[in-house]
């Protein structure tokens, strides 16, 4: 079992890449292509689960690619944090894939050419896994580029005017962030002579504080754009909503969190000595408040949820910026929660769009009566997002606030106030959305949708006459099933909150002592 673990570590990167190649070869046979993609991602999920339990029991696994021992060669490192992120990301990517494929199968319009979708999607998964496992800074960059280039393709699928417009902003902003990251790597290399993260952890702390600060800020700006931290978040609500629903779901769920993951690594492993606590806390507060204020102004559900996504990135940054073990543990738990909930919400919104013909709160209405199952599937993650008690959003926020209080600092306490206000405003936004799109009579909408109005009237008539009327979900069963799985996963986060919190806590403890990571990677000579 222990011998097997190092073999598993590179597989979450290798298998999807292999699958992408196979899917390209099979591009004429969409059925075979789909089977390959689903099998590959299921395998990745099982491997990630085994890795998580293995790593938790036997400590971090380090694999030197091609037998080049660190620090000379490329290393993949699977510790608790990266395996946990891998498990969540593989679950989400698998569910979104199933959702996307069943949507495609039922979509008559050729807006999403399936032969391009599968390979790019698998490359995206490989890139995300590579970023989580990367043990050196340049490999992290390569992971970022892999999923970014795949995301460019996915975001502009079908190349309609609207998507190209959004794609241009997204691609250019991402390129700028990549270039800043790459420049940071160049400068760090010339300052320290290595890109291996374990070795960097030792050497960076020997640099003069001002040089450290420059390198630190440079890296954080690069990652901050990816993670959509205010004031670097402007691009996100502009570009995400135009993509196809499953693509938006996986982007919103995963890609920003990869940025957060990179920030966690930067703060704990690379720059544990130089602290940017105050600016990061302020950025976290602004991200929360400005993001949610943006959401209030919107009328498209996709845009509303994109703005809340930006806003809730602030919570994770809050935990990371605190820098304590409790804060990090809460940030990790919150990240896991947010990946799942955000994906579930976007998948549900995709079905709302299919059922109601649009995602604008100006034209939707009556979905609660017309499609109760869909409403519930939307309502659970929506409540979860705003942090209503039984759900994981509440647990994560309580953890964060507790970590903030234990800091005995006015800034941390004002962050708690900002977090509470944001949470209440999220509830307001979600409540208003639900009220408009699900509760009211569709005829009351500003721009009523004739089909919904007719259906609603029919339903009313049937009810008055006492006739049975069967509500229709109006979307393919497998799409609904995939979304349900993600929603159930979000509930599982509540049911198994204690073990998960324990795992997050242990991961945070590992992060707090970079010496352990260094000695694991460099083979004992770390301390």
């Amino acid at each position, binding site marked *: 079992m222990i011998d097997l673990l190092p073999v598993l570590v590179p597989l979450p990167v290798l298998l999807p890449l292999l699958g992408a190649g196979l899917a390209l070869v099979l591009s004429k046979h969409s059925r075979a292509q789909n089977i390959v993609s689903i099998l590959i991602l299921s395998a990745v999920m099982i491997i990630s689960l085994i890795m998580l339990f293995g790593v938790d029991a036997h400590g971090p696994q380090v694999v030197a690619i091609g037998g080049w021992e660190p620090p000379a060669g490329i290393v993949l490192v699977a510790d608790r944090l990266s395996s946990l992120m891998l498990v969540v990301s593989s679950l989400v990517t698998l569910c979104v894939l199933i959702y996307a494929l069943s949507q495609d199968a039922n979509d008559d319009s050729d807006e999403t050419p399936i032969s391009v979708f599968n390979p790019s999607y698998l490359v995206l998964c490989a890139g995300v896994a590579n970023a989580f496992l990367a043990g050196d800074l*340049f490999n992290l960059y*390569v992971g970022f*580029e892999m999923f970014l*280039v795949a995301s*460019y*393709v996915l975001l*502009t699928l079908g*190349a*309609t*005017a*609207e998507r*190209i*417009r*959004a*794609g*241009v*902003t997204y*691609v*250019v902003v991402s*390129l*700028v962030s*990549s*270039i800043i990251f*790459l*420049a940071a*790597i*160049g*400068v760090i*290399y*010339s300052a320290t*002579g290595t*890109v291996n993260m374990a070795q960097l952890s030792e050497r960076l702390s020997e640099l003069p504080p001002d040089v450290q600060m420059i390198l630190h800020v440079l890296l954080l700006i690069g990652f901050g754009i990816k993670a959509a931290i205010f004031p670097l978040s402007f691009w996100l609500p*502009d570009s995400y*909503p135009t993509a196809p629903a499953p693509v938006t779901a996986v982007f919103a769920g995963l890609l920003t969190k990869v940025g957060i993951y990179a920030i966690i690594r930067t703060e704990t492993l690379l720059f544990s000595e130089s602290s940017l606590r105050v600016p990061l806390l302020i950025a976290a507060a602004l991200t929360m408040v400005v993001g949610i204020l943006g959401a209030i*102004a*919107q*009328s*498209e559900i996709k*845009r509303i949820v994109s703005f809340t996504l930006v806003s809730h990135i602030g919570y994770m940054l809050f935990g990371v910026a605190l820098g304590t073990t409790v804060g990090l543990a809460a940030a990790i738990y919150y990240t896991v929660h947010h990946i799942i909930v955000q994906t579930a919400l976007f998948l549900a919104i995709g079905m709302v769009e299919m059922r109601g013909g649009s995602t604008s709160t100006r034209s939707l209405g009556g979905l609660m009566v017309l499609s109760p199952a869909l409403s519930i599937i939307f309502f659970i993650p929506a409540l979860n997002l705003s942090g209503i008690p039984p759900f994981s959003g509440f647990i994560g926020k309580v953890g964060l606030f507790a970590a903030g209080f234990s800091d005995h600092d006015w800034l941390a306490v004002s962050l708690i106030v900002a977090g509470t206000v944001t949470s209440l405003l999220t509830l307001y936004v979600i409540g208003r959305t639900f009220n408009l799109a699900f509760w009211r009579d569709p005829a009351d909408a*500003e*721009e009523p949708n004739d089909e919904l109005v007719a259906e609603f009237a029919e339903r009313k008539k049937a009810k008055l006459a006492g006739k049975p009327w069967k509500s229709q979900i109006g979307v393919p069963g497998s799409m609904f099933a995939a979304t349900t799985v993600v929603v159930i996963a979000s509930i599982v986060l509540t049911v198994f909150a204690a073990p998960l919190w324990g795992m997050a806590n242990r991961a945070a403890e590992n992060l707090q002592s970079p010496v352990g990571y260094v000695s694991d990677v460099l083979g004992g000579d770390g301390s």
Partner: protein
Amino acid sequence: MTVPFIMVLAMGFLFACGIYLMLERSLTRVLLGFILLGNGVNLLIILTAGRGVPPLTDGKNLSTEGMSDPLPQALILTAIVITFAVTAFLLAMIYRSWRLVRADSLQDDTADLRVAITKMIDSEAEASTDYDDTEFGDEAESPITGAIDLDDDGKPHEREDGEVSTDRAKSGAGKARTGTTSANKDGRGSEGTETEEKK
């Protein structure tokens, strides 16, 4: 490690030009800016290797004295390939954008504009509802339905009574609220036809 000053200067120049070009609205300039920026970063990485002889030995003397650092050269290869691929993608996207909208510039986000316009109309509509039945009703309403006309000459567009009454008839109940939506619909309708023409 010594670095030739002229190369550092060239790197700075590439960065400066690249950033300047990327701030433009024209997509081709953004692309050129990205190419310059990418080359600037590549130059930065290659400069970290320092000047020296190629890292080759004759097999007997294994001293690394005077050699340049080979790792940045390995890194830069990856970076060049990535920059190249992304440039190709950007170029394809810009071409597609040109095909679709016949303009080499970044388009405005219609959803953004809609939110901005809606807020403006809504606030004006709410202000005018109370006066709807008075003689000021017509005057209060005209800026709403004719919001765009205002910009032409900078002063309120004068409306004849007949025009307003047809507007009213269109909006049905004669409330400012419904008037707003009809104006909104019109705005949307014209947008729709525009995009159709573009296609």
